[in-house]
């Protein structure tokens, strides 16, 4: 963590604050988390779990979509925006290395994301606990949800920098980011589902499918949150695939992805000619 990376992080954080991005992202998180928590609070009694557990289960589903989206929205023009403005060549003529520049942007974006996630899920979780009760297990699940959401965001921040580096303009980067989001969050699962249906419970479904699923960071996020908490698993009704995997598979995937993503982004950024 070099002073130069910190200088860039400080400046980027200031930009996020000033153009209201931080405020809007936090607001979106709070509103969606609250809406899901209280709109989906019907089955509490029937499953015999406290309300925070139900809330965490719904928020997990929400976060799979929202964390990658918010992350990509922040990162897609991190490189291409500077290049479009002509300030990237200037930035690169300073003693800061490309790794430092990328790290600085990553730190600030991650901090903003962490803030929005913590405030959003924290608020909804606190209200759920207050109105419908909470236990040690459900509090742990909430903490896990926040931490894994930040990790999931980190993955897509890094992917966004990669996209931003290889795109010829910010507009192209925006399009490519939308494609990335669609592939990781929607199409990948649809493809797997299709394969499972065709396979009719054969070898693929038994042995390959769970690993393919957990290789996708969005699914790893889901599996980790669900498998780690029995009560959450019960409420979300998704136990089958997760139970076929060793417990370390999903955490490993979700912890490795930010590192892989950042390495890829650094590689792509290294090839950028401003």
């Amino acid at each position, binding site marked *: 963590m070099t002073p130069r990376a910190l200088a860039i992080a400080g400046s980027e954080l*200031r930009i996020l604050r000033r153009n209201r991005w931080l405020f809007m992202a936090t607001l979106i998180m709070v509103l969606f988390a609250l809406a899901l928590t209280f709109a989906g609070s019907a089955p509490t009694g029937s499953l015999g779990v406290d309300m925070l557990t139900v809330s965490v289960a719904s928020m997990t589903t929400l976060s799979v979509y929202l964390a990658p989206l918010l992350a990509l929205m922040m990162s897609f023009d991190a490189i291409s925006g500077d290049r479009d*403005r002509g300030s990237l060549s200037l930035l690169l003529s*300073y003693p800061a290395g490309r790794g430092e520049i990328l790290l600085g942007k990553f730190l600030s974006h991650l901090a903003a994301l962490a803030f929005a996630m913590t405030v959003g899920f924290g608020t909804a979780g606190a209200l759920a606990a207050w109105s419908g009760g909470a236990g040690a297990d459900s509090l742990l699940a909430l903490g896990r949800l926040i931490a894994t959401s930040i990790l999931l965001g980190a993955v897509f921040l890094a992917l966004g920098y990669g996209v931003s580096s290889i795109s010829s303009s910010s507009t192209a980067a925006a399009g490519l980011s939308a494609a990335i989001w669609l592939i990781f969050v929607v199409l990948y699962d649809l493809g797997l589902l299709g394969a499972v249906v065709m396979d009719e419970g054969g070898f693929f479904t038994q042995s390959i499918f769970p690993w393919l699923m957990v290789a996708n960071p969005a699914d790893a996020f889901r599996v980790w949150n669900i498998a780690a908490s029995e009560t959450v698993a019960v409420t979300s009704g998704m136990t089958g695939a997760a139970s076929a995997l060793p417990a370390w598979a999903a955490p490993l995937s979700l912890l490795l992805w930010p590192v892989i993503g950042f390495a890829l982004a650094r590689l792509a950024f290294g090839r950028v000619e401003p």
Partner: protein
Amino acid sequence: MDNSLIIKSVNKFRGKTQVLEDIDLSVAPGERLALLGHNGAGKSTLIKSILGLTPIHGGSISINGAAPGSAAARKDTAFLPEAVSFHPALTGREQLSLFANLSGASADVPALLERVGLADALDRRIGTYSKGMRQRLGLAQVLLGRPKVALLDEPTSGLDPISRQDLYAIIDELAEQGTAVLIASHALTEVEARTDRIAILRKGVKVADNTLAELSSEAALPTRLRITARAGEIEKLAQQVGGTRVNGASVELCCSADQKMAELRRIAALGDVVVDISMTPPRLEDLYRHFAKENRQ
């Protein structure tokens, strides 16, 4: 090895086309070099090569002994990109402070902004700056941390006449403190007066590199004489001196530098017929046209 910037037979390709061809160029400490050339001649590409932002294919570049893009070279170089702009959400002070932090130089940011005439806009967002104000902000960051080499890509674009004067005063200051300054420009009249040496690129080839005086004698361009006749006597004058008639009252003729005095004496001897003579020695514009012309071998 007393030059701050040494470029030796640099080649650079973009795809199959060669954008820099065997370029040799050096700038001494305190020297101001103007780099001229038509659009797409390769000026910006050469500057980016010096910064190590784009790879070169053959040849070598040394910035105070360091390789392009190395930590030492980046510390010693200042750069003003062409048509630069900054993040609109930051203020001038914040942007310049960031650059100061990145360069590791301790800088008096308000004083620097004052120096480029942005004292009033210090805490305004860059989004509210005019084009010239953004250009000045770019110039302010050039002054950070006493660079050994300054690379300015079209620094006067977007500046009003007074600001241009200020800009050249700042460039002179840089040169006085020993910075080697390279200025890529299209503003011929300005660089004619305010630089020490002139290099001209044509399609990636260096076609001229010398002081203005040396270039003039190298090119041996004629001096133009315009002789104005007394009312109604233009026919007579044209017969006597030759040359081409212009605007019904004058004739124009060209002569080489060494014939100039002989011509003047001959015309003066014509007496009352001549009411005025104006003499135009070759300007940088003519030299530029001469050197950048397509059909020179």
